């Protein structure tokens, strides 16, 4: 997973906090930018946007108009963390700093989307399994234990054949929306694995994961003119009391994923709906 420092733009337009707003306006016009990073002794002090300028008298110093202590990201964070920060705070630009808050560059949503876009499913907006596995790795390395829910839509191939792929896509979208609604972003990371298969990587324990699975099973997926869509769920993990060995994190995730996938196949074949590995 690429780090922010590998993707950022190191050339940023900055201004000293002691400069006046007239100077800031000239800089913005000169560089064709809508915001300036306010820097003193290489340390990021604030951000000045054209919106800030419109609210104040042009005679003012940058100090008195800027937004102090903007949201930043550490140079060693990965691009997934960067996107999460941007989405949580509804921002498009993120200054990149080192441990001492010295400004190193700027990363924008546009910079990441080209890379990130390949990691998300354009139909549902959910991350693909590849990205989810990276997120799972980060969670484990940060000391969280994981449980994986593997969700497989029942008889989906028949839906596509009988009602057409357009209806099939609608079902996938409908299911994804339900999944996003039911999952708690504090604990759960929903994603699309492939075709009619979905994943939820969760920080819950197994008991809580079962409750989530039951909640999902009880949510009807109804498309007009189409019989109700059902899902089979397999669960693996969420029972350890100690931290897992972080040396084999990727192997651990693959193992859990396999267990959950096989459990969902068993749920489907036995019509049990939910199986715990």
């Amino acid at each position, binding site marked *: 997973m690429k780090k922010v420092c590998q993707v950022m733009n190191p050339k940023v337009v900055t201004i000293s906090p002691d400069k006046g707003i007239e100077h800031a306006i000239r800089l913005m016009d000169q560089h064709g930018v809508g915001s300036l990073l306010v820097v003193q002794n290489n340390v990021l002090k604030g951000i000045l946007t054209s919106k800030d300028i419109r609210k*104040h*008298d042009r005679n003012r*110093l940058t100090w*008195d*108009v800027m937004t102090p202590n903007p949201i930043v990201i550490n140079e060693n964070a990965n691009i997934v963390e960067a996107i999460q920060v941007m989405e949580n705070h509804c921002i498009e630009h993120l200054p990149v700093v080192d441990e001492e808050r010295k400004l190193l560059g700027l990363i924008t949503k546009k910079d990441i989307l080209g890379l990130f876009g390949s990691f998300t499913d354009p139909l549902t907006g959910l991350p693909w399994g590849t990205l989810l596995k990276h997120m799972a790795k980060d969670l484990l390395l940060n000391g969280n234990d994981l449980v994986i829910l593997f969700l497989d839509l029942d008889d989906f191939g028949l839906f596509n054949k009988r009602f057409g792929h357009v209806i099939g896509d609608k079902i996938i979208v409908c299911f994804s929306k339900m999944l996003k609604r039911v999952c708690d972003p504090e604990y759960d990371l929903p994603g699309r694995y492939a075709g009619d298969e979905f994943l939820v990587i969760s920080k819950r324990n197994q008991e809580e994961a079962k409750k989530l699975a039951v909640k999902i099973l009880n949510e009807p997926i109804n498309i007009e003119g189409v019989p109700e869509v059902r899902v089979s769920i397999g669960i693996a993990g969420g029972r350890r009391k100690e931290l897992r060995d972080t040396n084999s994190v990727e192997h651990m995730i693959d193992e859990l994923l396999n267990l959950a996938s096989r459990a969902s196949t068993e749920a489907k074949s036995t019509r049990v709906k939910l199986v715990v590995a």
Partner: protein
Amino acid sequence: MEKNKTITLSMNITEFEMPPMRDVIVIGVAAPIGPEAARKMVEALSPEQYEVLIVEHEKVEALVVRKPILQLIDKSKLVSEILEEVSKIMTPKIVLRISLNVSLNITKTFNE
């Protein structure tokens, strides 16, 4: 035809008081200077004599107060009294200066 052009120069000369500020400066939220500019100004003209107080008010952004005043009267009390009075005449775009007189009246009674 005679042409006569004269220039008249009129000057009004007064002393620039040092320091030029009074006891309190009241900075409006949309005033031409902000608290940091005011802080730099008072520090340059009268080092360590003034304190900048940022306030939560619809028209006032900050007060710059001469420090000795704050030794005679509680800070929050002073701020609330000033804000109460200036908000009646204040607009967000202006900077006001206030001269303050603070006197302490003490009466003691004791049994002889």
